[in-house]
């Protein structure tokens, strides 16, 4: 039996960084190009649990780097990369592919003779929703297969709401909250108590929310919930633990230019949203150094009164659980909604941008632009278009750049849509230095092809099959059903959103695809970022003939050393 890798997963739980960029990268280099809704987000009430499913877990980690973030809590980019690389040796074939080859006569298709029986009936088990008088929403999802109970509290407000002079505050808060413990029980004592029970309580911060989560064996669930509630109501932020968190974040900052994929993801997002946008600004040594204990306390006091969503799943009695949750949360003051954000978004400044990295032999090419949000009624059509562009082995990008040209292992692209703000259009390809220009041109040709190469009925049918026939994997476990409901509640979407979305997908036509492609795909509004080894890139990027190549400075700002005179007492 191998337990080793579970240790990795538990180590992951320790970290509390914003990892969305890492996730994105891992998705690309891993195996699945998300069609949209599956984007791994913070604190899903338990995806894959941390823990050792010993050997199998090892295999999953090895083969599916993109899975790692599901190990919940928060995963530092650092940790994720270390896991992927140390366990490395694992190579998966991987996805996205293109368009249909010219209609060739084909020999018999034996697979078409295989019957597809009617699918067994399935009604995903919906959680019970209870809205308390104070506006807090509870979700109860019974699941008696295994003797565990888990839960979480989602709290609106995240990194995008923090003071620009203190970027990193939410990340520090997410770590320090848990490690500090409560007035009654220090974080260290809490660690001892929980680990002896194979239980977990974790806190974390993300771009638009923070969360507290817990899980344990059924027999320990009352006690673990009581501890979690105590941490929720009576945190005891400690200077020592804040310092520890600051060191951890600082480590991530000084290492952020070591991996080219990390650089590419981060810097391309800055091209889209702007370097100082609430969605892309990054913690610096100075901004995390500016965060004080009082800042953490103030953040906690402020966000505690937002619209909380409490969700619990597992092996419990619903009436008893409801009573317990009411007892815990009904007494809190009436929630007040955060004021709506008024961020402004604009297309990136088009052009070719370059970051030189001398210790690599492969270029990361990112082609980016502004996307949309899920309220946009064109999203179902865009989802189908994405599937055709970069959604699987049969997607145009995969088929052309990987299968036909052999220029990349990792390639993909999609027009992104986030829940409450515009996502990114984002295509990427990783190719050897010498083929950087060829691969970039090939990817651009497929992007342009969305508006010039008419979509076919065959492509439409394939894309719909791909999406719709695997649609039930969005809710094939009770945990997933719960996670979806919590997310919909959090962003204010109707509870039947998935059903209406699915129905809309089914109605998408070739005309819809042509229309949305023309409406949203404008190659003259895209920025191209290349991270790679300058001297090896031959022909050079000027061969793209898209204007002068602009160098991007990624130097990490170091706080000024105190002058000698200032050091004197």
């Amino acid at each position, binding site marked *: 039996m191998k337990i*080793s890798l579970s240790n990795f997963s538990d180590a992951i739980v320790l970290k509390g960084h914003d990892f969305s960029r890492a996730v994105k990268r891992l998705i690309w280099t891993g195996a699945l190009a998300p069609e949209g809704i599956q984007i791994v987000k913070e604190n899903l009430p338990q995806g894959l649990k941390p823990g050792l499913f010993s050997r199998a877990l090892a295999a999953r980690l090895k083969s599916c780097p993109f899975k790692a973030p599901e190990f919940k809590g928060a995963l530092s980019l650092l940790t994720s990369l270390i896991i992927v690389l140390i366990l490395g040796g694992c190579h998966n074939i991987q996805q996205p592919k293109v368009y249909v080859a010219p209609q060739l006569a084909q020999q018999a298709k034996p697979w078409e003779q295989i019957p597809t029986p009617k699918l067994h009936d399935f009604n995903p088990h919906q959680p019970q929703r209870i809205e308390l008088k104070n506006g807090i929403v509870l979700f109860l999802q019974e699941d008696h297969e295994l003797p565990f109970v888990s839960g979480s509290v989602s709290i609106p407000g995240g990194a995008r709401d923090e003071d620009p002079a203190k970027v990193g505050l939410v990340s520090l808060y997410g770590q320090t909250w848990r490690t500090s413990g409560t007035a009654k029980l220090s974080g260290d004592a809490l660690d001892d108590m929980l680990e002896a029970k194979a239980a977990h309580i974790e806190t974390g911060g993300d771009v638009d929310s923070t969360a507290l989560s817990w899980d344990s064996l059924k027999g320990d669930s009352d006690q673990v919930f009581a501890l979690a509630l105590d941490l929720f109501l009576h945190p005891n932020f400690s200077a020592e633990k804040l310092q520890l968190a600051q060191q951890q974040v600082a480590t991530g900052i000084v290492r952020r230019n070591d991996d080219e994929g990390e650089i590419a993801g981060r810097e391309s997002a800055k091209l889209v949203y702007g370097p100082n946008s609430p969605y892309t600004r990054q913690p610096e040594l100075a901004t995390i150094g500016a965060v004080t204990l009082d800042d953490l306390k103030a953040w906690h006091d402020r966000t505690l009164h937002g619209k909380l969503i409490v969700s619990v799943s597992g092996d419990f009695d619903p009436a008893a659980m409801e009573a317990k949750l009411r007892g815990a949360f009904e007494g809190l003051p009436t929630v007040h909604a955060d004021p709506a954000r008024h961020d402004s978004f604009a297309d990136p400044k088009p052009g070719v941008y370059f970051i030189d990295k001398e210790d690599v032999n492969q270029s990361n090419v990112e082609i980016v632009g502004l996307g949309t949000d899920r309220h946009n009624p064109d999203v179902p059509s865009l989802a189908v278009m994405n599937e055709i562009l970069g959604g699987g082995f049969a997607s145009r990008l995969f088929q052309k750049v990987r299968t*036909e040209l052999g220029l990349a292992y990792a390639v993909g692209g999609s027009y992104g849509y986030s829940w409450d703000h515009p996502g990114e259009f984002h295509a990427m390809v990783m190719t050897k230095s010498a083929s950087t220009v060829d691969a970039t041109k090939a990817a651009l040709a497929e992007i342009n092809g969305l508006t010039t190469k008419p979509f076919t009925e065959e492509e439409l049918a394939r894309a719909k099959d791909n999406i719709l026939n695997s649609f039930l994997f969005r809710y094939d476990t009770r945990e997933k059903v719960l996670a979806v409901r919590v997310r919909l509640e959090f962003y204010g979407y109707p509870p039947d959103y998935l059903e209406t979305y699915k129905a809309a997908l089914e109605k998408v036509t070739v005309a819809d695809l042509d229309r949305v492609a023309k409406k949203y795909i404008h190659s003259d509004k895209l920025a191209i970022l290349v991270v790679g080894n300058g001297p090896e890139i031959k022909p050079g990027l000027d061969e793209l003939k898209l204007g002068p190549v602009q160098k991007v400075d990624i130097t990490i700002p170091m706080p000024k050393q105190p002058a000698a005179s200032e050091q004197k007492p």
Partner: protein
Amino acid sequence: MQRKHFYWIYKYVFLLVLAATTLAGARAQDLKSFEQRITTKVLPNGLTLVICERPEAPVFSYSTFIDAGDVNDPSGQSGLAHMFEHLAFKGTSQIGTTDYAAEKVALAKVEAANDAYEAEYLKAVGRDEKKLAELKQAFKEAEAEAHKFVVPNQFTDVAERNGAEGLNAETGLDETMYFWSMPENRLELWAWLESGRLSDVVPREFYKERDVVNEERRMRTDSNPIGRLVEQFLATAYVAHNYGRSSIGWPSEVQQINATEAMDFHKKYYVGANIVVVVVGDVKASEALPMLEKYFSKVPGGPKPEEMTTVEPKQFAEKTVAIREQTQPFYLEGYHRPDYRSPDAEVYDAISDIMSNGRVSRLYRSLVRDKQIAAEAQGFSPFPGDKYPGLFAFYAVPLPGHTPTEMRDAIHKEIDKLRATDVTDEELAMYKTRTRADLLRGLADNQGLANSLAEYQTRFGDWRELFLQLDKVDKVTKADIRRVANEVFVPSNRTSASIETDAAATPAQKTPAQDGGAQ
């Protein structure tokens, strides 16, 4: 009897599913319940089928586990098992082609053209560059001719259009795994696809795919500091065993693997006796088994291939790798340990748990919390594989301003403590509790369960070992931990590797992978 009831309810009285699930759930956690839900069958060709019924939702996951990986690559062909794995997505004589009879002829010409090119390219003396260029051109023409018969990616396309989720494969040093999930009504289609690619692979688009694999190597190994470090670390730790060889393959070797070699690998290792196929989900064994037998009987029989027999000689000198480059520092070390069949396997697990698992672990508390010199520190094992003797490894990520040497010293201090003093009762109990709980946690995931059952069935000849291992876990003692620590964690058994930050890296270090080889 219980089981029969359960399925009757599921099938005919759907509204009662919830209740039924509840009943099953009460028993879903132990070996006995799994014995009731799992059916195992060894086919005449030696292939083992395992079906685990878990009808929580109308889906299933599968795992095909081949007991061969890159450790089996012949000398000079590192990366071959992985190269073959990519080929297994290219279709068969029945899917992915417009006319297999004609394609077969064309593919033979591609191979002949490649051989001719290679023969000229590899001439040590008197290589004729003009002839080489002509041979390359001839190869490209042969490739283009064969391509005319290809329906690109049709195998994966059919799978994806039928709802395949998480479609992927993984080649490790020890094994190769193929897996995905699907709606349950596609079980027969899956059986046709999977048995087809196990038994009837065609070396289609092989040389294009080889380019793709070279890109994969650049991504995972060459262009990442830790990827580079790990490759050098293993190459240094092992002098004889293939665990020391780059698992994705040395660049010059990957670039010269040919389709004939890949097909030979398939012929030797993809035989029934070397394959376990596990299906977990909404599948009824009594109905599915005859159908699965029909399809998977197509896989060739033949003897179980001989095992790789090289034994790594005992290490007698401490070894060190130091990479100096413009990245942040990192420290890694490893000690040789026995394979997974060792009676001490669980003792190693206990050590890694106690040293590394969570905020109570010794390395976290020492290096991260108290000394405040590392952002994280872990011990883990076995690495890079477990079928053969692997390593027990430790790593630490220094905080800004701290060095690999400090990581090393601090890790050694913790190791010395483990050798000198027994772990506490609390630590040992914690390891046992967490192991049990984490095993349970994994049971609710079809894919994870399929992978585990496949691996245990292969490695122990019986999936039950997944549960029976808990008895061995319970038997681990404090004395065992001290004994093993004293046997293994000694300097002469150690290999260490570190990245030291160098503001001005030498040009030789800038380009880790030299291009070489054919094509």
